[in-house]
């Protein structure tokens, strides 16, 4: 079994005060999906229900809407964990209902269902560790300058190469981002799509940047399973801004280890 990081995204989630809205998320036809956590961006307190393929109903969210003491999903980057994982066959529709529990309504929120796609070995590009190796803790930083945009006219940097050096393979375990100049870090107006070197994406839509490249909150966003990159290859990144008043200098950092093949 080969596992590959995957984000399924539902965007433009709008729910009236104390109301609910239902969404159908069509899964890709290439592989089953193992759902392991749910993340939110641009959404306050809410509850959700999810119908699995086994027709079981999974509930989650704030837990106690009367007192709102359990702010499980109050903050972005704070995932709701599904354990054990819920496995969906390929090409089915995931039914999700979102409830507003505090009367504030939800406008243009985003939910990200994070897990792994499950492939037969060899069915998809996926280099692996050598039989014997040594590791070196390492970070790759990539600075970008992105102009401001609007929802109707976003600024997009497509296919930006995140190059891996030629001396060793690299395994990505965490990601982070840092604004160095320009507008402040804006997770509601900055999105990313991560792709492998052949352009195959790790998500079905734009992912809010704070859910993949959060800022100033170590240990940052964990990538599971790790993304293994052979030396001299690259990841590809699409970066989009739909907000701001000026250009933004932002540095994206991949945290992980260099992998040196050991001889003998």
């Amino acid at each position: 079994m080969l596992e590959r990081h995957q984000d399924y995204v539902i965007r433009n989630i709008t729910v009236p005060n104390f109301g609910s809205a239902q969404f159908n998320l069509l899964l890709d036809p290439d592989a089953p999906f193992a759902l392991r956590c749910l993340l939110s961006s641009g959404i306050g307190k809410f509850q959700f229900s999810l119908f699995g393929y086994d027709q079981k109903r999974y509930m989650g969210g704030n837990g106690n809407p009367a007192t709102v003491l359990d702010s499980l999903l109050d903050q972005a980057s704070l995932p709701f964990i599904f354990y054990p994982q819920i496995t969906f066959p390929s090409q089915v529709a995931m039914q999700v209902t979102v409830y507003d529990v505090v009367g504030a309504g939800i406008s243009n929120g985003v939910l990200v269902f994070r897990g792994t796609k499950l492939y037969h070995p060899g069915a998809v590009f996926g280099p692996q560790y050598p039989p014997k190796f040594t590791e070196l803790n390492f970070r790759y930083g990539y600075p970008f300058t992105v102009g401001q945009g609007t929802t109707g006219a976003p600024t997009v940097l497509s296919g930006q190469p995140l190059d891996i050096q030629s001396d060793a393979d690299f395994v990505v375990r965490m990601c982070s981002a840092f604004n160095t100049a320009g507008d402040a870090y804006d997770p509601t107006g900055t999105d990313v799509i991560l792709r492998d070197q052949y352009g195959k994406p790790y998500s079905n839509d734009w992912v809010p940047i704070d859910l993949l490249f959060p800022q100033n909150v170590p240990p940052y966003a964990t990538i599971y399973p790790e993304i293994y990159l052979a030396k001299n290859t690259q990841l590809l990144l699409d970066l989009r801004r739909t907000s701001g008043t000026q250009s933004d200098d932002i540095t994206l950092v991949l945290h992980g280890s260099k992998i040196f093949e050991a001889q003998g």
Partner: protein
Amino acid sequence: MNFQIRLRNAYGRALDNTYIPMQAYAASPNFSGAPIAAQPWQATPWFPELYCPANSALFLDYEPLATGDAYYSFHIYLQGIKRFQNETCKDGKVQPPKTSKVATPPATGPAQPHYTPNFLMYSRPPDGWHDEPFEYVFTFQQTFAAGITSIAQASQQNTPMQLDPDADFYMRGIAILLDPTIAAPGAPV
């Protein structure tokens, strides 16, 4: 004032591909430059551990992200263990090793967890050796009479962080403390 930094190990190999924001290396309660409000604060784990031979040095390159301040000051904390050989006493007996604080995972049994925390995967001292927790602190600070007028003025390269000669050091965590900044003379506060 925030910095971009680059670390090199004891053999001169860079641990990043370019200058990256210092926050990417470690947590700090005051990267905003404000006085420390959050206590306690903890080091960011470093995995796998970084081996540093005795009497070697790590090296730091750094450059500020902005100009204008009259003063910068930050501290880098390297946390880990020193590995010592057990002392041999005069009567020929070997001093018993100190008890390690790291729990040893059970070798057998049906209840093996699928998840193994990183700290259990750090190296262990061989027979006749023992580990002792240790923390190195290095301070980087400078004052500029007329304020920092250019990025290059406050940049440094290959600044050594000299390690002790008594034992090898295995780095397992890093923390950065950025002191509050002081405005340049005459600049609005």
